[in-house]
């Protein structure tokens, strides 16, 4: 695209820096890394995951928050150094009602099923029948949603904020937000460590299967 520009600006695919044929190879490679990290962190076990809600294992919170912190800080630095254009990064559009209800349902599904979609794939990979059933449930749930969509449509699109960023809503800059987020994350890590230490004394260590 640009003969003169020496540094390659990201994101690569939206800027047409990568021939479209490589899309799916990249997707597969990223997926493999994603799956490996999830499984190696212990997300293939539903009892590991739900430990976060009962205080005996906070691995989900740790992995999740650390990942968000690292990615956030990285994005801001990369944006500053001109390696990536933050404006071109996809921002999930916000539909408050729909998202709140959806997240409540997901929370309920999470505590019942013990997986989320990504982790259930890794559960299948190591031979968990419950993970397979969970994925089947996902399929059914999405099917159900699609069939009911005409009735839900106005709700689905209601109360939209568009592609609202945290900056738009709270009025604090991304840099400040990520700093606050880091502080919150560290406090959460420390508090959950204290909780975990106490809970583990009372809860029998569970057997991994």
């Amino acid at each position, binding site marked *: 695209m640009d*003969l003169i520009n020496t540094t390659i600006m990201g994101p690569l695919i939206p800027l047409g820096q990568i021939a479209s044929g490589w899309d799916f190879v990249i997707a597969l490679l990223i997926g493999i890394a994603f799956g490996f990290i999830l499984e190696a962190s212990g997300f293939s076990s539903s009892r590991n995951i739900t430990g976060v809600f009962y205080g005996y294992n906070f691995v989900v919170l740790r992995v999740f928050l650390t990942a968000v912190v690292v990615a956030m800080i990285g994005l801001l*630095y990369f944006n500053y*150094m001109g390696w990536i254009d933050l404006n071109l990064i996809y921002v999930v559009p916000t539909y408050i009602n729909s998202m709140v209800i959806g997240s409540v349902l997901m929370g309920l599904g999470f505590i019942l099923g013990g997986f989320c979609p990504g982790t259930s794939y890794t559960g299948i990979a190591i031979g968990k029948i419950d993970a397979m059933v969970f994925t089947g449930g996902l399929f059914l749930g999405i099917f159900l949603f699609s069939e009911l969509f005409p009735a839900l449509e106005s709700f689905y699109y209601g109360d939209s904020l568009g592609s609202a960023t945290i900056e738009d809503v709270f009025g604090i800059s991304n840099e400040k937000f990520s700093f606050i987020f880091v502080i919150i994350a560290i406090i959460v890590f420390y508090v959950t460590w204290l909780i975990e230490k106490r809970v*583990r004394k009372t809860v029998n260590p569970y057997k991994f299967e």
Partner: protein
Amino acid sequence: MHIHELNPKKTIIALSLFVIVIVVGLITLSGPRLKYELTPEQTIELVAWEDGYVFPYELEDILAGTVDTVIIMDIRNTFDYSRGHIPSSENISTVGLLNEDNLKRLKKLKEDGFCVLIYGETLQHAVGPWMVYRQLGFDNVKALMGGYEYYELWKDNLGDSYADDGYLIGTADFDYYDVASNVTMQENDNEKQPIKVVRKKKSTVVEGGC
């Protein structure tokens, strides 16, 4: 064993790599290679001034060698250049105008008091690159009015060319009001001013190039 009793060696390694990437990125962050020397306001002034153009008749002295501090650069593509160009001119295609070697040379020429005259097919062709050079601080760069087209017409007697002001662009060829305004509107409006065409007076040949 509890999590915080484990040694997070790998975590430290991974995070250190991340930090190293960021630090290296920040250190090597050198901003854009080129910086504007003129503010946008100064650029507008420069454009409004219409300074920095060379009249075709001035070219006669340059070509005759009376003025020897002028380097002529042809910014058309190599094909057009090979088909004909102003004698003693060098060819630099538009893409190469800002490459490192060229900029170094321009800087040297500026320091040595040389003037660089760029021309394209027309003045308009050269005016963009000329503006960029000027904004980058190369105030010794000038653009040839009329461009190669005009030179081609008058190359045998450039000195007499001020009889033909075809090299003047940026002016109205028509009285638009007479020619093109809406008839119905025209009736309501009787006052009419002739469009002022600002002509540059012929000046005496520039001394010393720039």
